[in-house]
């Protein structure tokens, strides 16, 4: 069996912090078990920690995220969030996707308020208008509140979608390659923003990414997955001081983490 990780839940990050997410033997298969998308996964995400999942395309990362977000049921296993099973979308979860997915008929601030307006109605959204404006201001979009998405650059659109995630004040952030469509410079900037936001809110985050440096830069622990069927191979604790800075990416320690993760991804048959 996999004595490295799957069956024994590793205590990582801030050991004292309470677990927010608890997954036990969560698996997913399609076609009556004929196609295994995700082999049993067990892991704990502790409050205020930042975790990343890295693995090749088609390793079931997005499947895992959908199960955690409560939009797809697991084939087996249990998914607990704050001690309650996840059987549908939950208010304490905020999500970001690869695409900003802003709606072109809404202004930036209306896009930010969309989650409130859907969950609690238009009056509730109107009441939080000031807050939404302040959030946009915080990510450097002051003056763009009433602009339509077509006038925003890719980075600005993605910053708007961060605000849309934050307006609901989620304790748990699920991030599905949120910055992979951005250029390198914008991406570095956004990653630093993301760290600042997570630290200031003590939010728990799970990031799915293809970028090893990004995973190392942001995470307390990086989970390495292998493909077909998706399986958690190893957890790597990143013991770099916080707050992390972009300069850290040039240190030997950082390079050692990146090398280690890359070699393990290669072992898992990562061919590209």
């Amino acid at each position, binding site marked *: 069996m996999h004595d490295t990780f799957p069956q024994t839940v590793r205590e990582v990050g801030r050991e004292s912090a309470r677990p927010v997410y608890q997954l036990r033997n969560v698996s997913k298969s399609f076609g009556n078990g004929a196609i295994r998308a995700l082999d049993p996964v067990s892991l704990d995400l502790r409050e205020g920690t930042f975790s990343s999942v890295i693995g090749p395309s088609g390793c079931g990362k997005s499947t895992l995220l959908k199960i955690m977000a409560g939009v797809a049921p697991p084939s087996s296993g249990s998914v607990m969030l704050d001690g309650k099973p996840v059987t549908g*979308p939950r208010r304490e979860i905020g999500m970001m996707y*690869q695409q900003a*997915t802003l*709606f072109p*008929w809404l202004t930036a601030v209306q896009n930010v308020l969309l989650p409130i307006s*859907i*969950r609690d109605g238009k009056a509730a959204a109107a009441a939080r208008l000031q807050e939404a404006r302040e959030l946009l201001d915080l990510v450097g979009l002051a003056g763009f509140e009433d602009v339509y998405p077509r006038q925003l650059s890719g980075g600005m659109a993605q910053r708007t979608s961060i605000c849309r995630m934050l307006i609901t004040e989620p304790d748990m952030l699920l991030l599905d390659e949120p910055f992979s469509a951005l250029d390198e410079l914008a991406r570095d900037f956004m990653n630093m923003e993301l760290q600042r936001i997570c630290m200031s809110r003590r939010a728990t985050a799970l990031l799915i990414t293809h970028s090893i440096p990004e995973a190392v830069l942001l995470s307390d622990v990086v989970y390495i997955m292998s493909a077909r069927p998706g399986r958690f191979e190893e957890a790597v604790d990143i013991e770099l001081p916080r707050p992390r800075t972009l*300069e850290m990416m040039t*240190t030997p320690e950082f390079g050692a983490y990146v090398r280690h993760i890359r070699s393990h991804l290669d072992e898992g048959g990562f061919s590209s």
Partner: protein
Amino acid sequence: MMPVETSSLGRPITVEPGDFPETVWSVREAWIDRIPRSVAMAGLLIVVLLIWWGVHHFEIVSRIILPSPQEVGRDILTVGANILSGGYMLDALWMTTKEVLWGFFFAIVIGFSLGVLVGETTFGEKAVMPYLVAIDTMPKVAFAPLFLAWLGFGISSKVALAAFIATFPIVVGTAAGLHAADDNARMMFRTLGASRWQTLIRMKIPTGMPQIFTGLKIGAVGVMAGAITAEFLGGGKGFGELIRVAASQLQTPRVFSLILYLSVLGFSLFWSVVLIERKLVFWHRSTVTGIDDRH
């Protein structure tokens, strides 16, 4: 950390001065593409009118079949005077306008509802859609005698055929529009816990607006054809009847000028839809950049 100070790594960019010729591109645009739009349109009209005049003048076809441009021009003024002075032609135009507007109204209500049924529910897609496709492949004008038999020779049979023809493009446009939303948007609404109704109203319908309006524009053209066809076949007091009578009396100039006034009605309807689309779907590329921004 890095032992090298980063600022010492760069160097100023210095090159030998060169005595090269200016890099000038000669972009040649064909003369036909440089004609301004208004000149091109007017020019083309004049050419067509000249050919028309020539065909008439040299009697290449019988003068009974093809009147001269001057005759048609005079008749346009006659008909215009009749309409403006509130004559019988204004009543006829108003009758046809009513048929077209009512027909379009029913087509929108029925077409949109069926489109939502087909695009949103599995029942609609599996059970209703095959029948709609089957009816859509039939020549709908062939239903005109049925509508006349059922609804009589009054306005309602014309409205029915006009609506019948215009409904299908609206159904197709609406159903296609509801499928236009991408997976990201659907996923987002699901994670927000949006209800089916909310997802439909706040995401799928707005996303599908461009396709819905494409259906409406096709429908706006079809509704005219439906109303006029029904008048041809079922009489009544509309413009179609005037055309039929004029044609039977070989008053070809009158037929031409009546068609011109009908096209003004069709054009107004079409452009009303386009203007509403520009207002509602202001965010879509197709409405923001028109066909005329090449120059």
